[in-house]
């Protein structure tokens, strides 16, 4: 289930993120359809291959491993999400006292 996956077609490379079902933690779609804790282990898809990636990511929802799959446009250096919201998903809260 993800409404965010219906967003406009990607114009930059995308990776896929979700929350892990068991504990809600942010995860990223890596190789072989496995969900990883670190964005550095994610697999970027070219914009024209985003639908293929989404289908793979959705399998994680069908398998009940993750919740709320959606695509995130990234700069391949890192990779680093283009939008601030997803950069926060990578970094955790910007609030030092609780991010520790």
């Amino acid at each position, binding site marked *: *289930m993800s409404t965010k996956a219906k967003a406009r077609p990607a114009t930059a490379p995308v990776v896929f993120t979700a*929350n892990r*079902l*068991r*504990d*809600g*933690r*942010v995860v990223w779609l890596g190789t072989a359809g496995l969900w990883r804790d670190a964005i550095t282990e994610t697999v970027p898809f070219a914009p024209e291959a985003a639908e293929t990636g989404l289908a793979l990511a959705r399998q994680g*929802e069908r*398998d*009940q491993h993750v*919740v*709320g799959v959606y695509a995130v446009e990234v700069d391949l250096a890192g990779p680093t999400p*283009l*939008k*601030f*919201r997803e950069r*926060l*998903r990578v970094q*955790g*809260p*910007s*609030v030092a*006292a*609780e991010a520790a």
Partner: protein
Amino acid sequence: MNALTYPPHARTYRYDEIDREFLQERIAEFRGQIERRLAGELTEDEFKPLRLMNGLYLQLHAYMLRVAIPYGLLNSAQLRQLGRIARRWDRGFGHFTTRQNIQFNWTKLEDVPAMLEALAEVDMHAIQTSGNCIRNTTTDEYAGATPDEVVDPRVYAEILRQWSTLHPEFTWLPRKFKIAITGSPNDRVAAQVHDVGVLAKRNERGEVGFEIHAGGGLGRTPIIARKLRDWVPEAEFLAYMEAVLRVYNALGQRENIYKARIKILVRDLGDEFTQMVEREYERMPRDRYRLDPEIVAAIGAHFAPPPFASLEDQALHADPEFRQWASASVRAHRQPGYASVTISLKPIGGIPGDASADQMEAVADLAERHSFGEIRVTHVQNLVLPHVRQEDLYALWGGLRAAGLATPNIGLISDIIACPGMDYCALATARSIPIAQRISERFASLDRQHDIGECFINISGCINACGHHHVAHIGILGVDKRGEEVYQVTLGGSATNDAAIGELIGPAFSYDTIVDAVETLITTYIAHRVPGERFIDTYRRVGVTPFKDALYAPA
């Protein structure tokens, strides 16, 4: 720990065996649902409404469990247990909210049944803290203590809690529904920006009745409530409330989430809404809904005054630092020799509303020692010890200082309301907490804060306005602009008797410039104020122009 260890004189509602049995059944039911979800037998679409009914959200980084604190009342056993939960199943923190509840931001789904069991040990739960139902009724944090109180609102807040909990007719309302009740003519509950705001009062014969306002709210469409009735007799209170809910339940715009709150219906129907409520009220079987005085008295007994000693008022300790704290934090009490103390959860550079497990335990201990074991949560995200002997204030201050809880900024510019914002919330479009932190750091000087005087800054991280920015003297709304955070400023809002929606002052500011903008607003206020004026007074007298000119003048 269990209910038997409650402080004997804390005036919080005590569950009976039926309440406790129900809670255990509900936990067992949700435990089973979680197990089926983890086993893949329930999809997220099937599970989501079930978890929301139990206060469990999925946020940006994790699940969040929102725990109900009925009308903001806690006893020390309960607060100590919240600290234990924070330490064991969260990251050692809890976040007190503008609904007088607490949220745990790092909840694991698999831990939720154990967390709910721990809550049930102290008669607490997370039911109806989410979903399109009647949420936690909020009330005056100084109830039962403040000299200006006419009617104790806790009694009727508890009656509303019992009436609204699992009410079969109102489990699936068009949208969520929030009620605030006060028993003082001085509104400290933001009654006029609630779905229903209730003012409990007395007539010339001393009888209790209720002034009912409906259709207030913040969010995307901020509206001040409309007064429906100046007087509803006590016996008819639930009948009238039920009539309001029925009209809303029947006519609220379920098809459009942005128009589904009662405020839109009341705004669109105007006086016709009032008439429809009256017609519904008239045709209801009133005997069935009659609020029996014996029930009121029985519930009222839970909130009887604690055993106050016979004391006289006394002068404050001479320590100047203590006096500065007391001038902000200590409030008059109806009982001679006692005072109410507001504990700031807004340390300079801190996260508004956050308390660590250690701090929760420290406050629980101090409440036991100095306030009959009672604690209140305020809708501005602070805590209150309602009944403190004046002779104990200095010792209490020492205890609060040791726990990092003695910031003397209540009602001042660093006493900021802030929603969790994008740091935690899945709906947010910008961060709130770091803005609050930076503003409080900018105005860290307590002498300067006291010179500025009363000034309310509220910050929301999206248009849903959980940070109540519309009703702040200076409201800040974070929005997304092409993937980056920008902050709009509103001026002149108020959540008290003179409730008003703030006016948007102009183009938004960046994350880097919003604190400078606040500084400019304060500098402008200082330049224009006359003796005795608060920020809001000066704003109302001189209007928006000087502030706008100062903010947007060409460099």
